């Protein structure tokens, strides 16, 4: 009884009937708690929808039936028996597990109120996130001073935004301002101490804003260091080459957490007695050096991929080492490795939560702190889902942006 084109309608009706029954079984089971295959042995009843569905899909698998919809279903979901079973498993799993997740997330969740007692529904208690939202974003930064963080970030975003629209001539100066002047202004604005701004110690910084601060600074600083390390590794001078290799391999060989441990307990031992370097500065140095080593390897990949002719052409024009690299080699090499650079930045953002080892609490650390608050015990799930969502949005957006950039900058030859 092989399905054929001659009896198309009867086979489709026949198969459709089986598929309908299998879906009906699953739907009734999930939403109404009814099991009409209950008369069968328990194992058989459990697999009944799968078996019925597979039989149904077998009957409608008719190649070149002439019906566009049917052909589409068959090629995309139902090309073999194995694919049919996989399709059914995926659909049934979605039917079974999506509703409870949605219920937990939205329909049974609690949004109003301001204490744990207001959470009466069976779903998530988003009140927890609402109440702690300020802390999740600003950490322990004093409420009255939070406008400073806001204005620093607004300034940053408007500068970055402006750099997309201004003419090329001004853009250059804007970028230099952004890379060399803005970090100092921003840092001064947030830490305070001068110009009538109240000093806020770095221990009070935290939450999502700290995530941004740490990743932005490390990102700006690790790029030039990585570039010089990459050039150093390809240098013809042995002392510089081996120093660069040693430096890169040292950082790449150890986990970030030990580097942070080192910055916390070992680094102070190397400084004169009594000198105190701020915790955040130490962390920034550690993360920057760590990421710079990875950046160096990525950039080196780009340098190696450039054809030798580029070097020779630049030299034949009488360019020296630095002019050759900054005008000819690096612009091309960096363009080649944009995906790698974006991945390093992504890794950097994802690594920022690790600063909890020195006692700095960014978003994930704040969630950890909030969930141990006696008034809010048992809120771990909500906290981590929220933090995960925030990080996911940031990282996903970044990866998408880098893919677009890669497409835009690719110079097809």
């Amino acid at each position: 009884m092989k399905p054929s084109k001659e009896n198309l309608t009867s086979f489709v009706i026949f198969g459709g009937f089986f598929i309908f029954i299998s879906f009906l079984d699953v739907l009734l089971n999930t939403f109404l708690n009814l099991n009409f295959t209950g008369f069968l042995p328990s194992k058989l009843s459990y697999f009944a929808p799968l078996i019925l569905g597979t039989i149904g899909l077998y009957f409608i698998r008719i190649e070149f039936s002439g019906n566009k919809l049917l052909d589409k279903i068959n090629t995309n979901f139902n090309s073999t028996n194995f694919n049919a079973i996989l399709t059914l498993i995926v659909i049934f799993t979605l039917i079974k597990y999506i509703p409870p997740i949605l219920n937990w997330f939205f329909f049974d969740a609690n949004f109003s109120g301001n204490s744990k007692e207001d959470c009466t529904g069976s779903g998530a208690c988003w009140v927890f996130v609402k109440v702690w939202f300020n802390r999740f974003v600003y950490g322990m930064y004093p409420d009255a001073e939070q406008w400073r963080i806001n204005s620093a970030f607004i300034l940053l975003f408007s500068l970055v935004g402006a750099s997309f629209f201004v003419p090329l001539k001004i853009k250059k100066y804007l970028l230099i301002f952004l890379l060399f002047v803005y970090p100092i202004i921003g840092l001064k604005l947030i830490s305070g101490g001068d110009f009538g701004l109240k000093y806020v110690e770095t221990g009070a910084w935290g939450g999502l804003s700290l995530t941004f601060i740490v990743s932005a600074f490390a990102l700006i600083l690790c790029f030039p260091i990585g570039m010089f390390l990459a050039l150093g590794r390809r240098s013809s001078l042995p002392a510089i080459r081996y120093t660069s290799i040693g430096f890169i391999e040292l950082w790449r060989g150890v986990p970030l957490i030990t580097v942070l441990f080192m910055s916390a307990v070992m680094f102070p031992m190397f400084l004169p007695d009594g000198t105190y370097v701020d915790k955040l500065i130490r962390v920034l140095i550690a993360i920057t050096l760590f990421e710079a080593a990875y950046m160096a390897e990525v950039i080196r990949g780009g340098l190696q991929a450039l054809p030798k002719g580029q070097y020779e052409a630049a030299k034949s024009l009488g360019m020296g080492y630095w002019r050759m690299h900054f005008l000819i080699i690096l612009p091309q090499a960096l363009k080649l490795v944009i995906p790698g650079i974006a991945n390093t930045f992504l890794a950097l953002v994802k690594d920022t939560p690790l600063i909890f080892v020195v006692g700095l609490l960014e978003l994930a650390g704040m969630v950890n702190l909030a969930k141990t608050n006696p008034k809010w015990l048992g809120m771990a799930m909500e906290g981590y889902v929220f933090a995960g969502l925030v990080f996911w949005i940031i990282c996903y957006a970044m990866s998408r942006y880098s893919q677009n950039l890669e497409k835009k900058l690719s110079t097809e030859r």
Partner: protein
Amino acid sequence: MNLKNFKIDLSNKNKDLIPQILTILFLVLVIIYFTINAQDNMGNRGISFGFGFLSQESSFDITFSLIDYDGSHSYARAFLVGLLNTILVSSIGIFFATLLGVTVGIGRLSQNYLIAKSAEWYVEIFRNIPLILQIFFWYFAALRALPLTVDSINFYDISFLNVKGWYVPKFIWTNFSIFFYSIILATISIIFFSRYARKQRDEFGKQLPTFYVSLGLLVGLPLLTFLIGGVSLSFQIPELEQLSTTVYVYKGGVSIIPELISLALALSMYTATFIAENVRAGILGVNKGQKEAAASIGLTKAQILKLVVMPQALRIIIPPTTNQYLNLTKNSSLAAAIAYPDIVLVFAGTALMQTGRAIEIISITMLTYLSLSLSISVFMNWYNKKIAIKEK
């Protein structure tokens, strides 16, 4: 004329020498500065640099250990416990990450739209959430939601899962060494057999059933030791015991602590996304013409996959995947965040707190990871050279 040339040579040499001398000078000065400061600081605290403390009694306990350990053992032993725990969680993670990664990577290339989309979303979701958050999620949120000891989830009465961990049967071997040797013997004979089979193929064009013979050897030889070698295996199944009216514990069997479960889960699910991308890139990287050429000389589909596609795909897949294994091993140091006693927590955490020997302990920890990384990368370079296409 000669003199002029000589001068130019000298100036060129100087041009090369000066930056090098400056670099070395800078390095030496930094090292001297740090050493002097470190000596000062350690002198002030009344400790002197040295590794003698390693043989002292550690006097702290470790919650989970593969070897015999308690507070009366030395710091060196504590280091070993931590190292073994790191290796344990890394190997579990690598195993499952590979399994999951290959499945998802192949799934992304499936003709089935649903499978391809699910695999893609799996990758997009788990790759873009920080690993530490995933570890926290499994440990503090998901595994804490498991039932209490008294109403554990029961797997066929031999294994139990509850909030305290996962209790599995313990293997009790008699004459384990004979069994172990039989496996080694089987491996060696498989290597020899496959060499012989390759020789037969190269010289006479004969195809020997290498796979089935290998499988037979690997299963048969150890099985033989059960029958005639006096090896036997029994299971100690964990049993629920009531200590007081409300306190229940499982006795016997092996308990897998929730720290290990959540760490292994998060590590393998996170790393699997990267491995999946490698596998996908590898399979896509094999030229279509290769498959068509193989089909045109009459190879079957299975043969095409085994003899033409896989060897080329593996050449693309293996180097970045080893890198991921290395990353996984380094990432296992995040164990410190949930108090799984790995090398960082035990040694760079507890031992450092007790002895205050920051420089020695951090250096040992970093050197351990460094030597692990370097040995893997040396192996990788060797392997890359071995499998590189030998062009004429």
